[in-house]
């Protein structure tokens, strides 16, 4: 028996390295037939390359250029977003919250990492980190300052804590001096961070400076 025990030990000590441990689990699941390797690669590719903030930027730029779409997006976000094809897991129940002259919105998930994947892709590390989850609700202005964003005291800061299966997207204010820009040009001014609410949309640098 002691022999058996030692034998066991040799095989039970998990490889110390997380990379090896993940590889070991993956090959076990593939061997058992629970993971189709091609499906695993396809899923990773999907979130690495295809589902990302460009989707959200497209929605925002359309709302900026098409007033009927903007209203639809605010009144019935699921239908408006689905009309552009951005449907998928963690985006089933959307609410779009609009920044105005009076209100600035900010999204967080204090309990885990809820985030609208079909529109923004997977969340950045900071969004899932303890500092952001802890501070965004108690000191949103201080958090935004860490991103270089200052919201005037006269403007209400409204924080949305994603505690259910509803997902929130911020519709940033359209920057001044962007009249006449195409949907494609406007998309470049929309950042992921602006759709989370820690920043404003970018200003078109050259035009503004010239003016």
């Amino acid at each position, binding site marked *: 028996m002691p022999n058996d025990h030692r034998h066991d030990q040799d095989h039970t000590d998990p490889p110390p390295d997380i*990379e090896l441990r993940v590889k070991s689990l993956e090959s076990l699941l593939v061997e058992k037939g629970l993971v189709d390797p091609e499906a695993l690669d396809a899923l990773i590719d999907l979130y690495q390359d295809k589902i990302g903030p460009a989707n959200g930027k497209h929605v925002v730029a359309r709302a900026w250029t098409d007033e009927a779409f903007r209203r639809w997006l605010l009144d019935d976000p699921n239908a408006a977003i689905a009309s552009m094809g951005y449907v998928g897991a963690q985006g089933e129940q959307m609410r779009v919250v609009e920044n105005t002259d009076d209100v600035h919105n900010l999204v967080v998930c204090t309990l885990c990492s809820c985030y609208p994947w079909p529109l923004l892709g997977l969340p950045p590390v900071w969004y899932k980190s303890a500092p952001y989850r802890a501070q965004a609700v108690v*000191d949103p202005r201080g958090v935004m300052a860490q991103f270089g964003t200052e919201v005037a005291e006269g403007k209400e800061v409204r924080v949305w804590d994603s505690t259910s299966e509803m997902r929130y997207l911020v519709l940033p204010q359209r920057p001044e001096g962007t009249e006449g820009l195409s949907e494609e040009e406007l998309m470049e001014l929309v950042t992921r961070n602006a759709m989370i609410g820690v920043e404003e949309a970018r200003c078109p640098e050259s035009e503004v400076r010239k003016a």
Partner: protein
Amino acid sequence: MSGVHDMGGMRGFGPVRPEPESEEPVFHEEWEGRVYGIVRLMGLLGLWNIDMSRHNREQLPPADYLANSYYENWFAGIRQQLVRTGLISKKELQTGRASTPVPEHIMEKVAHAEQVRAAPYMTTSYVRPASSSPRFSSGDRVRAINSYPPGHTRVPGYVRGHTGIVHEHYGSQVYPDLSAQGVEEGRHLYNVRFESRDLWGESANVNSAVHVDLWETYLEPAP
């Protein structure tokens, strides 16, 4: 449960330190993507729901939960869940070699590449009928109940005992406290607005409010 995952309002974690948006990769290490993919594919087998996954991670040892990176927590969570549901045995996990067959009805649910590429395939509906009509409507004053259940819950600690105003009724949706125990029941869900000064007192930011989604069970009428 109130645990270290319930972070809203905690101090002492330091600054946020964001990476520049244009430079941040989706996955910082290849294994992170593998963990993400494995967790999603295993979820599609339908043996557990999102609340069970969350509760599983919430039950990691608190010191580990805080010290681990995000995907390390996902990895720890999925290992536990695979063993708990019998999809893999402890021995298989230890040896890395398959020794028990997977039941046919589970094998039939294994997702293939073409299903994965069709994103709508992976959506979930959270809407379920409630057994009663909604107790609250927009504009009602409500208080988040003071309760510290040992199981999974989605009332953040920082709103418990505080009064807010119903902003919107979101219909009836899967109630997470029971869902984490494998029982699916619809209950009314509301978005409730709390004024920051009511939550945080003197320490509150000026001119700010926090909106939180709360199921009816978490709320009581407030004067």
